[in-house]
């Protein structure tokens, strides 16, 4: 995806404004038993992934290490724990040295057990090669001997090229699992919020894979729309797991606020912000669970699995309603409804992972995203943020899959810039401005 995706470069700044610090906290491996991690130095040789120039016959660009070390915030993930903010957060939490605290290291480094760290392993490398690609001890030999991608995978390399696998890996930190979740206590101590969308964040990482003929021959052609769709389903599933997790049940009057929509509370009191949202059924002045991925998933499901979309919508409504049930065991109800939403997301995952998102899907989804934003009243900030990244992914898919010509892509990307401007600052966000920017983008969509 270094094929010149517009926003990877042009809007890195804006996307960074949304996500700058959040991007540092990042996908660590759920590296429970993937062998010994040999360390970044093992991969960075100049004949391997640290080459200045592609060697003859190489199937990859070989600058992967250099992109990571020079441009990718994952390389800074450990170092930033030792910065002023990292130290302040740790102090606020009573953690001592953040560079030694497992709760921090689990996502800010490749925090495998000491027995699984090779001689060249260095925790200070942050989120390095094997955090995502898996410990190399079992497959490095094959890998340097020209094995096929399939053979590498069979030997233990993690299949980051597969949408579902990639989503699981990235989102194990970029939302979190029950054991490495950024709770509101950590947020309150100073941790930045963590917006994420799998396909867009892949591009702005920036990706160190080049989708050329060699890549496609070995791994198939990636479809941005599919990455986006699967990412949304995994996001929703993980969020439901977090609600179901007993650790996140309310303490007294104090719920686990990280499960909720940030801007439901963190907004100015000087503007009239509240609007009725049919998909939540909640009145003004209520806390609202974060549901942007569920809303996005409904849009994609409406196209590829309409029955599942309807089920998801009704369970989502029931989940929101359960949060204000005036009964002592309301949290049990919330958990039960979360279980239902999770099931609905679960049912969609294989469908999305196998669906061939073609040109007609791309056009229909782009239109549906634009329309849902304009017609709907569901444009919370978090929803608008996801909608913007969804459209970026769909447009990226249109480009890489040849569904639109260069002039059309240019027009769409220009309009996408308008969306990013509206969501650049959550405090200044205005739903009507977002709807206007969406309408503008709508005029640029290719006619089928």
């Amino acid at each position, binding site marked *: 995806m270094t094929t010149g995706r517009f926003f990877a470069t042009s809007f890195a700044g804006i996307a960074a404004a949304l996500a700058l610090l959040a991007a540092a906290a990042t996908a660590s491996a759920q590296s429970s038993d993937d062998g010994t991690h040999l360390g970044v130095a093992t991969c960075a040789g100049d004949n391997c992934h640290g080459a200045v120039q592609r060697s003859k016959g190489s199937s990859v660009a070989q600058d992967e290490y250099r992109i990571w070390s020079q441009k990718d915030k994952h390389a800074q993930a450990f170092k930033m724990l030792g910065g002023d903010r990292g130290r302040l957060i740790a102090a*606020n939490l009573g953690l001592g040295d953040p560079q030694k605290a497992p709760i921090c290291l689990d996502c800010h480094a490749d925090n495998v057990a000491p027995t699984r760290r090779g001689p060249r392993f260095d925790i200070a490398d942050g989120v390095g090669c094997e955090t995502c690609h898996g410990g190399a001890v079992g497959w490095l030999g094959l890998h340097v001997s020209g094995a096929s991608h399939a053979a590498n995978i069979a030997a233990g390399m993690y299949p980051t090229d597969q949408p579902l696998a990639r989503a699981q890996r990235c989102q194990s930190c970029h939302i979190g699992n029950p054991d490495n979740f950024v709770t509101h206590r950590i947020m309150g*101590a100073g941790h930045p919020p963590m917006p994420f969308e799998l396909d867009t964040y892949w591009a702005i990482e920036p990706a160190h894979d080049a989708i050329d003929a060699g890549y496609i021959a070995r791994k198939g052609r990636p479809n941005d729309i599919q990455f986006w769709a699967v990412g949304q389903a995994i996001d929703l599933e993980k969020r439901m797991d977090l609600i179901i997790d007993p650790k996140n049940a309310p303490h007294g*009057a104090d719920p686990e606020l990280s499960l909720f929509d940030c801007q439901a509370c963190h907004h100015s009191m000087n503007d009239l912000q509240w609007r009725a949202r049919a998909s939540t059924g909640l009145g003004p002045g209520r806390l609202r669970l974060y549901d942007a991925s569920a809303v996005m998933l409904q849009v994609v499901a409406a196209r590829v699995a309409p029955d599942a979309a309807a089920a998801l919508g009704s369970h989502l409504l029931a989940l929101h309603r359960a949060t204000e049930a005036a009964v002592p065991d309301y949290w049990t109800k919330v958990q039960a409804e979360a279980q239902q939403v999770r099931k609905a997301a679960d049912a969609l995952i294989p469908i999305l992972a196998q669906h061939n998102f073609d040109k007609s899907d791309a056009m229909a989804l782009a239109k549906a995203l634009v329309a849902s934003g304009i017609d709907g009243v569901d444009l919370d900030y978090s929803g608008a943020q996801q909608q913007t990244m969804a459209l970026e992914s769909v447009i990226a898919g249109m480009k890489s899959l040849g569904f639109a010509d260069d002039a059309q892509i240019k027009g769409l990307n220009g309009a996408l810039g308008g969306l990013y401007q509206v969501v650049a600052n959550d405090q200044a966000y205005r739903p009507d401005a977002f709807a206007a920017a969406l309408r503008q983008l709508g005029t640029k969509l290719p006619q089928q």
Partner: protein
Amino acid sequence: MLGAIATWGLRFAAVVCGVMLLAATTRAQSSSEPGIHLGVATCSGSNCHGAMERPPGSAVPGDEFIIWSKRDKHRQAYTVLLEPRAVHMAQAIGLPDAAHQTLCLNCHADNVPPDRRGREFQLSDGVGCEACHGGASGWLGIHISGASHQQNVAAGLYPTDQPVARAEKCLSCHFGDSTRFVDHRLYGAGHPRLAFELDTYTAIEPAHFVVDQSYIDRKGRVGDVQVWAAGQAIALRRRMDALLDPRHVPHGLFPEFALFDCQSCHHPYDSLHAPLPSAGGLGPGTVKLYDANALMLGLAASRAAPEAARALAAHMLALDRATTENWPTVQKEAAAVRQIAGDLAPLLGSYDFTPDDMQALFEAQIRLGTASGDWRFSHGEQITMALEAIVANLKTAGYVGDEQAEAMTDALGPLYRSFLNDEFFRPSAFAKALKSLQLAPER
């Protein structure tokens, strides 16, 4: 107090308004006393309270109606219900309008039952004379016949000159009671935040009474610090009443957020909002109860009733902690705090704050504001208004000269500016402005 404070009020009206513009439109009124409310027109005659100049021999300036009708937002309390914001709010909570709803009228007008509305009574007068001073049918006769203030009060005039009585009346809307309360549903629909401090808000209303010799002869001299302290005690007691109200027991996930500190949640999250948590208090990321009244009351009582001040601090800490534990403990601690606040109100409302007391209070406010720890916008707001009340008191009691009082008042400007916008509030700027404040009363 009104000399200094009214000047301050005028000079900083715009600044203060930036903080609490719309909040000031809601206003204490009571409909529990039995009299008929005769209507504003009954009071506003040019020989009575609508005089262009002081009538000969009058005990009061006579321009009270004119000040109210031209400058006091209470006058607009009803008409704001007709504005787009109010209509929007009403719709958000499923009401057809705002101007016909008991929920709104109970504070935005003198909403006594129809059988207690006299001939000249107009609901559209908003929060008028009798909303605060009481229905006049029982005392108007003696009032216009030169009765003493005590006789008027005995006949039913509400004693707004008394700190505790004034606090009860104003706070019945500016915080609320069992029949009127701005809950978080209403806030969420668009109601402005209710900020309040009795002494400062009396001044910026603007007050339509003048504390001159005639006033002092009839009603005695009441110090701003007494008014401030009584206001804090009653505000805290009312907060505890609300916390104990069965309607405010958490419904499902939602406690009554209106009882919590607004900026505890409503702050931009791109700033490092919370410094180190205070010893023993709640950690980062928790929603905190509004506690500024309790902090103020603790300081007010620290010399007058030190044991009560210590007990208050202990129960507030336990109350804070209980919010993350269970509601029965919250209620138990709230009842204890309520008791202390209720006991302190009459004590502090009549306590003779000496110049030493005021100096100590001033310094304690500055210490509170400059200490690191669990520190909030609401604290800064209350500290600033407390300092204003102290300065006003020192001036009107003659403990500092005009020039010195003016200099101190000027020095409060940067404090107000530092929290003009709660979204951009920075404790460091506030602490800096506080540190530059000096108090050196003449002895």
